[in-house]
């Protein structure tokens, strides 16, 4: 079985190089079958490498997904070049990489624009979400008014909002997209913060009454600091959502200077590899926001019991 597998890797690799050499001429069904066998064998080989890395558990946390990613890319390349998939279905990773290289200045510029929109919306939505939650926690009437509205906002599809905002504010400003991001961010931050503010332990409640603390002191000394881990969880959830919202909002008109508009215009112009290059940038941007949110949460809650400690 294992000997069979290693032979399959060898033949798969050979097939791969042959495929790249012949270019996108398109292979026969027979080549495709060989390629599929090679792919399966290749996956087995990667598994063995990861198994050896297990001895160093810390390293394997990084090594395993990286190797898996490489394996997927290799497999992808093989499927496209050897299998001769048409480019509109799936461009080869090498073609996409080529486009990334060629379009790098534009990619960086558009990523900065979309990232900027996501960041502004994230900050606005975060501040708004926290403030609304504090207000709702402090004043009963406000809670009764705000809570259903914010929860209803979670059901708003940004698809519906984006064109409306564009008409409202004009298509020459970044405001519509930032507003869309803000709406998307407010909801998880509000919900999470509001939950945190409700999590006061009864003994702390009693203590503050016994100390004759004012309502304000109670919020400042007990409720807010106690809610911070929840606030940070809200931020972590909202950060990648902000990027998604910023990109999707660009699909519906307005300025054509961000990642989303580049993806749609490249796809419309049948420049599929270029579209995928911008998709790759979007993925990187999303991961960046996700990691930043995660890091912020870890940093703020590191001294808490039950946190990352």
């Amino acid at each position, binding site marked *: 079985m294992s000997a069979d597998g290693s032979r399959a890797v060898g033949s798969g690799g050979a097939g791969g190089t042959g495929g790249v050499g012949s270019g996108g001429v398109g292979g026969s069904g027979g080549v495709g079958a060989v390629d599929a066998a090679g792919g399966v064998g290749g996956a087995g080989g990667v598994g063995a490498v990861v198994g050896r890395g297990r001895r160093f558990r810390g390293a394997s946390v990084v090594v395993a997904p990286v190797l898996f990613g490489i394996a997927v890319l290799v497999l992808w390349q093989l499927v496209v070049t050897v299998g001769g998939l048409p480019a509109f279905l799936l461009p080869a990773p090498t073609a996409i990489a080529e486009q990334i290289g060629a379009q790098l200045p534009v990619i960086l510029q558009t990523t900065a624009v979309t990232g900027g929109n996501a960041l502004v919306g994230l900050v606005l939505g975060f501040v708004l979400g926290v403030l609304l939650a504090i207000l709702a926690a402090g004043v009963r009437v406000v809670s009764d008014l705000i809570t259903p509205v914010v929860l209803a906002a979670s059901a708003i599809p940004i698809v519906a909002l984006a064109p409306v905002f564009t008409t409202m504010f004009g298509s020459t400003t970044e405001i519509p997209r930032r507003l869309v991001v803000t709406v998307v961010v407010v909801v998880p931050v509000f919900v999470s913060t509001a939950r945190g503010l409700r999590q006061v332990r009864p003994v702390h409640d009693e203590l503050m009454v016994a100390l004759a603390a004012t309502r304000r002191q109670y919020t400042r000394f007990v409720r807010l600091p106690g809610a911070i881990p929840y606030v940070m969880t809200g931020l972590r959830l909202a950060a990648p959502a902000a990027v998604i919202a910023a990109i999707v909002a660009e699909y519906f008109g307005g300025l054509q200077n961000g990642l989303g508009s580049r993806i749609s215009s490249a796809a419309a112009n049948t420049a599929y590899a270029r579209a995928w290059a911008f998709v790759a940038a979007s993925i990187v941007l999303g991961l960046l926001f996700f990691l930043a949110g995660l890091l912020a949460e870890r940093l703020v809650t590191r*001294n808490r019991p039950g946190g990352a400690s």
Partner: protein
Amino acid sequence: MTGTGTAAVELQGVDKAFGSVRALAGVDLTIDAGEFVSLIGPSGCGKSTLLRVVADLEEPTAGSVAVAGTSARQARLDQRYGIAFQQAGLLDWRTVAENVELPLQVHGVGKAERRRRAAELLELVGLTEFAGSRPAELSGGMQQRVAIARALAPSPRLLLMDEPFGALDEMTRERMQAELLRIAGETGAAVLFVTHSIPEAVVLSDRVVVMSPRPGRITEIIAGRRPPVAADDLVPDSLDPEAVEDVRETGAFFEAVTAVREALRKGAATDGPAG
């Protein structure tokens, strides 16, 4: 610094009803300045409710409550008492010293004065070196000592303690009892102490108040065996843990324990037909 003539707590005809349940019925009790009084009785006898009435965390249905010569409410607003619960209830995100400072912060005491007072109190409870630690890094007994230091922060003449050692293991508990007696002696504060443990009540108290349920009431008051502090001068550490250990082994201690136990049994017996 209230006059020594004023009683720390004065309760007259206190009733407390929760719906149709009579948690307290006709409770009269006076705690003198500097006196250590324990409340003991089975669950549901109203001992915690009584403490909460004194703390103004519950309002009595009838009767009068005076704390340090004023109403319970005014005493609470003026931070005339310090309070400790079964759970230490420390704020996890604050350091040990910041937790001790909390009552002073609530009452607008300046930062420098708060620091000074917290250092003093942490020395009193023997936790100076943990001033900068987080509560989560401390053992249960140490956390409870921080809670006691916090209760003492505004220099109250009255300390209210609701089973503060209930969650501790026996060895830690005995050490904490000696510690509490030393602190009570040094500060001269009166203590109202709720407990389930007969030996604990006897060894700590000047008087042990025995209560029984349905309705919650005082059935008997028995003299405790609180070890005497060097009365003429309140030298720090004048009460060492061994003095407390010695008390636990005297005949008088066992007599008092027996007396409390019989009082509790009697309370339970009269409870039966009353239903």
